[in-house]
Every structure is written in C-alpha cells, then in structure tokens.
C-alpha cells in the first residue's frame, strides 16, 4: 500500500492558477466522493487553502494513481490538463510522507512557522473523516502528521518568534512586563500600525486602552472601538503614569515626550517599568528616554531588526525541524510497511491449512480399513509438512517488512496463492493508536 500526494502550492503556481483549482469547503463531499471512486484509489483527503491545493491518497498503483488524480483535478475544475499539469507536483512513498509532515509543520509555508496551516489540514481531514473518504492508513498518517507538527512546534523555536511589528511589540512587552492581564496600553495619535498593535495587545489580554489625539473626537472614536478611555491631548501627562505600554505615532514635528517627563511619570508609578514604542517618523519620544532606568524605548527600526533576526532564526530552526521529521518518517514508514505483513501471513497459513484439510479428508474417507493411529499420524505429518513449507516464506516476509520491500512480497504472495483481499481494502478497521 502506498501513500501518494498530488498538488500545487505557492511555490509552483501563481494565485491565478491556485484559485482555479481550489475546492470549496462547502461542497467538499462531492470531490471527495469522486476521488475515492477513481480506479485504484482507496482513501483520499483534499487539502485546499489559499496557498495550496493538495490531494493525499492511498493506492496500490503509484503511477496510475498519480496520473488519475492529476486528471481528476483538471477535469473537476474544467481546466485543460495541459494548463494545469506543469504546476502539479507529486510524491509517493517516503517522499510523500516527508512532504505532508513538512507542510503540517509549516516548513513549506510562505512564512515558515506560520500557525494556520496545521489548523487548515486538521479541518480538511475532518471533512474526509466525516465523509468517510479516509481510512485506516490516512487516519493514522494524518494523526502522525499532527503530532509531528506539534513536536516541531514545541521542540524548536520555529513559531515562537514574532514576524510582524505588532506581534514583536507584544512579545517584547511580555518580556518586560510579564503577564499583560493587569497592564494598560496608552495610544498616542493614530495610525494603522499603532491601532493594529493596540488590537494585538488587547487580544493578548491587556487590561485596557487609553487613547489620546490632538483631535479629541478622533480619540473618542478610537476609544469606543477598543472599549477604552479617551484622554485629552493636553492632559496626556496627567494620565501617562497609568500606562504600562505606550504606543506613539503622532505627526508631531518634535518629540512630545522627553526624559524629564518620563522621570516624573516613573516616580508617580513608583518605578514600575514602562515600555515605550515609538512608531512615528520623525520621532515622538526622545531617544534619551531609553537611558532612564525602568523605561524601555523601542522604535519601529528596533522592532524591524527583531523581525529580521526572527526570520533568520526561523530558517535555522527549520533545520532542526527537518531532523525531527526525518526521525518520524522512519517510524511511520516502518508501521506502514509492516501493516500488511501479519494479515498476509495469516491468509497464507489459512490457505495452506485449507488445502491440507481438504486433501486429508479425501484420503481418510477413501481408506477402507484404517490402521490404529493412522488418522492422528497423517494429521501430524501434514501439519509438519505445512509448517516446514511455510517457514521460509514467512520469515522472508517478516524480514522484507523490516527492509521496506514488503509491497513486492505481499503482492506476489497474494497473486501466487490467490489470497483473499486484505481487510483494509474494503473494510474499515479500528484505528490503532
């Protein structure tokens, strides 16, 4: 049994192509049904996001399976096959396992380490499970992919660092102020980045927001939006001591907060640290503020530097993640290849035993006068013969299971001895964990 992957992503296809082959989650039942009715395809899962469309399937016939899924993708979306084909990639066996593990771990994403992809695959798998297009192998496979992704997430720092200004500011605030749940944000001026950062702070649990602006109405409007408090610009310094995080982005030509102001504010708040983020150009906050103890000033350039460093860090961490994936591929591949060994051995034994019984019965009923013990002796004789004959193929099969050439042996045995179909081809087995 083989796992195959066919699909396209941001790396192989522009958005104009990607949007044409996207599967809508509302009507996913139809393509899933058609997919598993394709000849030779046993199980199937469709993952469709804005950056990738991929089909995971199991089949006995790798080349045929891949070709049929490629055709299916074109035909389902009424696209000329020649147009779609150059953008499609396909993987099978170990490389398919690696690909899906990498995708789930966000190593194949546009921004390495972004967290959405795992959720998207989980949702896609959810549909496949709901409409019964995935079976024992894909169930196990995707659960494994989820646990690999989790391992990558916890054991590397691939997703732990912020790659947007707003997130970098929140992360930094946590490093200075600890838990944000009792912290207040002060927003000075307006501006997209500032508002976005304020939103992130609130999402990260900040207690409240104060907003101030030269035009008080704007401050009020923004304060309403955040459920915060509007402060008149003239009375900024009467309220500044209540803020733990100060986000500033006014259009003022000069600094509006100087070191002396900050010193007084700090005294009023009994030297509890303040985190200043200056997003304005020209700057709103005098750089000397950073020299004051318990005041921490970061400009947008500092935050950009952090982001650049984080992106570099992510690529480094990605290497560690690849190592983890390598380990996990080995394990899963082993499970997959031994999956068919035991049922095949059992089927082979049953087949032999069946022949033996039939022939034994024939012999015994044809015998007129049976010497004492003959029946017992014949029984032992045939069993011994059967065991001797089966010994070599059984151990060869077990060894093949460890060496990874198992498909060849399983298929040969099934055909040579006309064994019945393997159980997971048509029945659903309990998902073993």
């Amino acid at each position, binding site marked *: 049994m083989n796992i195959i992957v066919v699909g396209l992503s941001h790396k192989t296809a522009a958005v104009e192509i990607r949007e044409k082959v996207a599967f809508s989650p509302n009507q996913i039942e139809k393509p899933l049904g058609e997919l598993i009715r394709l000849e030779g395809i046993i199980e199937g899962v469709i993952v469709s996001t804005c950056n990738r469309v991929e089909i995971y399937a199991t089949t006995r016939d790798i080349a045929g399976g891949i070709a049929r899924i490629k055709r299916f993708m074109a035909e389902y979306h009424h696209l000329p096959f020649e147009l779609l084909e150059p953008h499609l990639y396909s993987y099978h066996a170990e490389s398919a396992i690696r690909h899906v593990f990498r995708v789930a771990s966000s190593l194949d994403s546009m921004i390495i380490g972004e967290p959405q992809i795992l959720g998207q695959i989980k949702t896609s798998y959810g549909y496949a499970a709901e409409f019964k297009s995935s079976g024992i192998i894909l169930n196990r496979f995707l659960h494994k992919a989820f646990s690999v992704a989790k391992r990558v997430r916890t054991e590397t720092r691939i997703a732990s660092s912020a790659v947007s200004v707003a997130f970098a500011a929140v992360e930094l605030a946590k490093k200075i102020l600890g838990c944000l749940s009792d912290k207040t944000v002060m927003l000075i001026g307006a501006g997209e980045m500032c508002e976005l950062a304020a939103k992130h702070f609130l999402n990260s649990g900040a207690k409240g927001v104060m907003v101030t602006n030269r035009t008080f109405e704007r401050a009020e409007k923004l304060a309403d939006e955040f459920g915060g408090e509007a402060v008149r610009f003239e009375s900024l310094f009467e309220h500044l001591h209540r803020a733990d995080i100060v986000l500033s982005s006014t259009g003022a030509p000069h600094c509006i907060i100087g070191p002396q102001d900050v010193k007084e504010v700090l005294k009023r708040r*009994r030297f509890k640290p303040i985190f200043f983020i200056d997003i304005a150009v020209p700057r709103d906050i005098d750089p000397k503020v950073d020299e004051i103890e318990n005041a921490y000033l970061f400009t947008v350039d500092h935050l950009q530097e952090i982001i650049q460093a984080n992106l570099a860090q992510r690529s480094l961490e990605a290497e560690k993640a690849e190592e983890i994936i390598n380990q996990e591929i080995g394990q899963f591949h082993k499970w997959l290849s031994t999956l068919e060994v035991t049922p095949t051995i059992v089927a082979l034994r049953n087949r032999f035993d069946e022949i033996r019984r039939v022939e034994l019965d024939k012999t015994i009923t044809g015998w007129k006068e049976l010497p004492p013990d003959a029946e017992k002796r014949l029984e032992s004789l045939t069993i011994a013969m059967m065991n001797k004959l089966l010994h070599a193929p059984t151990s060869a099969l077990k060894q093949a299971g460890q060496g990874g050439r198992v498909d060849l042996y399983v298929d040969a045995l099934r055909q040579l001895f006309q064994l019945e179909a393997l159980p997971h081809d048509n029945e659903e087995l309990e998902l073993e964990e």
Partner: protein
Amino acid sequence: MTHLFFYLTVTLYGCATIAYLACLIRTSPWITLWAARILTAGFTAHMLSTIHLASKMKYLPITNMQESLSFFGLAIVGAFIFFERKYKVTTLGSFIVPIALMMLIASSSLHGEVRQLHPVLQSNWFWFHALLAFVSYACFTIAAGVAVVYLIQNHFLKTKRLGALFQKLPSLETMDEISYRCLTVGFPLLTFAIISGSIWSEKAMGSYWVWDHKQTWSLIIWLIYAALLHGRLTIGWRGKRAAILSIIGFVVILFTFFTMKHSITW
C-alpha cells in the same frame, strides 16, 4: 550511608547543572523536564544524607564548615525547587544550581573530624538560630541569582540585543516578583535568626551582643536587606539598583560565611 547519599547527591547535582546549562542553549521540553527531575532526585538524596547524618550524630549537621556548606546547598536547592515550580523559571536554575554544586564540592573536600559537640552548641536556641539563618541565606541566594539574570536581561533590552538567550530568560516582571518574594520571606527569617542568635549568645556567654565578627557582619547583612526592603516599600525601589544591592548583600553573606569562624565554636 551518609557518604553514599552524599556522593549520589554531588553526582546528581552535577548532572542537573549540565542539564540546566543545556537549557540555556537548546530549547527542548525534554531537557527542561529532566533537569527538574534530576535536581529533585538530587535534593531527595541530599535530604536523606543530611537526615542520616543528623540521626547518627544526634544533632543538626551545621556545626562545622563541611556540614554547613552542605546544609547551605540543601537550603538553596530547596528554595529553588519551590520557585521553579511556582514561577516556571527553568533558566534561573542555570545560575542557581551551579552555586549549590560548588558548595557541595567544597564541602566534600573538607574533612569533618569526629569530635565531641561543644557544650555551648547544645542549646535549642542555637539550632533555631542556625536553621533560620540558613533558610534566609538561601532566599537571598535566590534573590542574588535573580538579580544577575535581571541585570543580564536589562542589559539586553537597553542595548537592543535581543537574541536567543534573551528569549529564554524570564521576563523582568517575573524576576522582580521572585526577588521581592525572596526578600519578604528572607528578611523576617534573618531578623528572627539574629534575635534567636543573641538569646543563645546570652545563654551561652552571658551577653546578648558581643560585637564579635559574626554578629557585626550579621548586622551589616541585616542592614543591607533592611535598606533594600525599605526602599522597595517606600519609594518603589526596583530594577537595576535593587538588583545590584541584592548581589552586594549576597557577596557579603558569602564573605561572612567563609571568612568568619564563629569566635567560640570553630
């Protein structure tokens, strides 16, 4: 038995030190988990070693440098385990556990002579005094470790060098909280230790305060931490200055501990 447990303790603390230092370099929940487990195992062995020695000698093993160093280490590790569980500050261990390990190694290099316990030590006030003093010293050791980490983090923030180490070490707020907690627990204990010590001094030598080195330096330590706590409570003294003072306090404790033999016993 005591020796067996003791060497087991040194080995386990050694492994724990390596594990905690590894935590600074690598991010792995596995290392974090095992660092804590090894340390707890080491602490248990240390505890058993101490209890075994105590039951054999029929006194608390804090009467000479060898015993005291080991007991100091025990108190430090105990306090650290408490704070690690409470605040999830694994990386602090990279700064605290080596201190305990060094104390144990120093302790093992000394020879405890078999001797009769000096009669002046056979007073409940002495045991009470010594026990309180060790627990308060352990709190101040943690506070000093936290202060070092605080200064490192503060330096990173001020110079905008926010690398991997910065990410791993705890937040300023967490360290401030731990340091405050250490101070509010350690200071009253130290106060009671000095009071019980002077009561014992009165019983043993007939005077509450003899101005010997030990008592004088204890008073200096007490004044340093009193200043620190006072500054914190009245004007909100925190951050860099508090951290530096906390480190100075710890250096004075070490100085007192290692250089002053108690005038009457050692």
